[in-house]
């Protein structure tokens, strides 16, 4: 295993992460092109923070999340992970583990530290396994504890996610969507991971259930010192749960900043449009909507230069020809836009001042 010095403090450091899928014509081996699902992204996640990852359907959020865990093999890039457990396992000077060059055995050790929660609470749980065995399975895979200890651990985790020990012997179909998502969270938690990739964990849930799961995730984070990469397309949810937010468009991160900065001072025209497109539950919320024209282009044939230029109202000549550099424009605010420094874009209007929106009387 290669151990390298990562930047101080960061739990996860991703550089130039790329995943291209080949597109093949039906029936033949002939290569038609590449889906540039993830096209060179840089991320740093601090211990115990939540980094939100937003973007429209097909922009590569899921692929990025899975590539970080090496659940899909990245085409290129580097992922450094600071494993508490592996550091404790003897290599004291080790500061960060290079995930992509880890061997099969080392990868298995890393899996304990990095877990994932899936979007669909229905298909992600094996319908023929009891809740107890679903949650306990990772313990068996990693040969942790004896049967009794494992059962104890499962009970403990189920309690932590708000389920009871009686639930252990039941099957997933006996549970509602929200409860199933709790089971999925319990399964991710059982190995005491450091990082959890949450891939749209509340998108499939009813509005009144979403809040339960979001609160649960927040509580668990505080209790167990978890770090989240939180993927979602719902901006309100991401804004609520994240410390920092990264906005993706066509396989690239176009903007990344602390949640407050991103919504108060967006620097990328796409972020501005995305934020202004969100329907706000406030009948008197009046804001000039920036309605983007056209559709999201295909990641097989992304536009030249800045991927966003065909839909961008601020595009200038250089946007068509040159890809903007992803850079820090101050205050750890990263943006990939040629005009990132000069534009002053419309922030989200503060609802507190507009009076009582959505508050129950």
């Amino acid at each position, binding site marked *: 295993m290669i151990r390298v010095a990562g930047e101080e403090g960061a739990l996860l450091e991703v550089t130039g992460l790329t995943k291209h899928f080949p597109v093949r014509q039906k029936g033949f081996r002939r290569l038609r092109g590449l889906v540039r699902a993830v096209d060179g992204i840089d991320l740093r996640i601090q211990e115990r923070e939540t980094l939100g990852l937003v973007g*429209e*359907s097909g922009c590569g959020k899921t692929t990025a999340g899975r590539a970080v865990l090496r659940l899909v093999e990245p085409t290129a890039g580097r992922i450094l992970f600071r494993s508490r457990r592996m550091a404790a396992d003897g290599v004291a000077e080790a500061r960060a583990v290079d995930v992509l060059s880890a061997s099969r055995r080392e990868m298995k050790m890393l899996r304990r530290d990095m877990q994932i929660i899936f979007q669909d609470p229905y298909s992600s749980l094996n319908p023929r396994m009891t809740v107890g065995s679903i949650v306990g399975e990772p313990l068996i895979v990693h040969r942790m504890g004896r049967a009794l200890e494992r059962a104890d651990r499962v009970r403990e985790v189920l309690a932590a996610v708000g389920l009871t020990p009686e639930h252990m012997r039941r099957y997933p179909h006996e549970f*509602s969507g*929200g*409860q199933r998502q709790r089971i999925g969270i319990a399964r991710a938690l059982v190995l005491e991971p450091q990082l959890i990739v949450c891939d749209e964990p509340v998108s499939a849930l*009813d*509005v*009144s*259930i*979403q*809040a*339960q799961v*979001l*609160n649960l995730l*927040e509580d668990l984070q505080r209790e167990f010192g978890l770090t989240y990469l939180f993927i979602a*397309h719902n*901006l*309100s*949810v991401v*804004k*609520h*749960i994240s410390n920092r937010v990264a906005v993706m468009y066509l396989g690239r991160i176009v903007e990344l900043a602390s*949640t407050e900065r991103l*919504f108060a001072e967006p620097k990328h025209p796409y972020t501005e*449009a*995305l*934020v*202004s*497109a*969100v*329907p*706000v*539950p*406030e*009948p*008197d*919320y009046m804001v000039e*909507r920036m*309605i*983007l*024209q056209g*559709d*999201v282009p295909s990641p097989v044939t992304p536009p030249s230069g800045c991927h966003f230029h065909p839909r961008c109202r601020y595009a200038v000549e250089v946007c068509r020809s040159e890809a903007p550099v992803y850079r820090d424009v101050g205050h750890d605010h990263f943006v990939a836009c040629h005009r990132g420094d000069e534009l002053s874009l419309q922030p*989200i*209007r*503060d*609802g*507190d001042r*507009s009076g*009582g*929106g*959505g*508050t*129950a*009387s």
Partner: protein
Amino acid sequence: MTSADVLLEVRDLEVHFAVPGVTVRAVDGVTYAIDSERTLGVVGESGCGKTVTALAIMGLIPSPPGRIVGGQILYHRDGGIVDLAQLPPRGQEMRAIRGNEIAMIFQEPMTSLNPVLTIGFQIMESITLHQRMTKREAKRQAVEMLRAVGIPLPEERVDEFPHQMSGGMRQRAMIAMALSCNPVLLIADEPTTALDVTIQAQVLELMNNLRRDFHAAIQFITHDLGVVAGMADDVAVMYLGRIVEAATVRDIFHSPKHPYTQGLMKSIPSLTRSKERLVPIEGIVPDPSDAPPGCGFEPRCPERMSICRTTPPPLVATAPGHDAACWLYQPDVHLVRRTLRGWK
């Protein structure tokens, strides 16, 4: 709401589905009204009966297993009032209304268009069915409709197949199809739920513009409170097969009456306000085949009283034009409750 220009009145509608072993009371006494040229937003969680209510109006309840077992759907048209619930769903009269005077668009733009027929054909089919028009005229009209919904190069796209269009374009085509006969009522069942936010914004803007030009009333079904706030004049909140609250959009958002509506407002994260901890509604939505005997929200309600467990509350006016179905707003129950509190 003045009753003078009421377009559609649904009264105590009940739709049941007979699935092996149980009867699912999908719609369990729904009452509401839509005025002409206004937009009624219908909100509610998955499975609360929004789609089934809409299908009942269209006469499209899959039967078996479904059946309208009670109530009326009064459609006010020039010639008088028709009870759509009484019309044979496949009869001549219903078919003349369906798709012509009352049109509907669906949630999934990817699957709601027939993949083997061109967009143009599917629009023309509607036109020639309900209007005296030659094929050529119908095609010209189809092109015009596509232009109206903002599809670029409509002359060319009219001959394309659905798979050649993106989700947003398909939903525009669906809207074109629904509006092609100038309906007085358009039922839109979550028309933007499957779309991306930026595309959703396009389609919502389009619908807002078209509403003005076409003078249609819209029943806009969604589970997104944000979409309702931006689109609707009036809102009906559904829970477990019933309307629990109905009022103007401002009243619903600024002074929600029903504990469920109130809980909903507190449980959604806000984009515009600073972060605060969410207050979720505890518990889960009961299965409609196993609904509580009293108020459907009783098991989750922070305000529940003993009467809530036994008797479903009627939908009554709590203020002019603001209805709620909750025992809290029954004057005499208030007394009972106060007395009970006093004892504690």
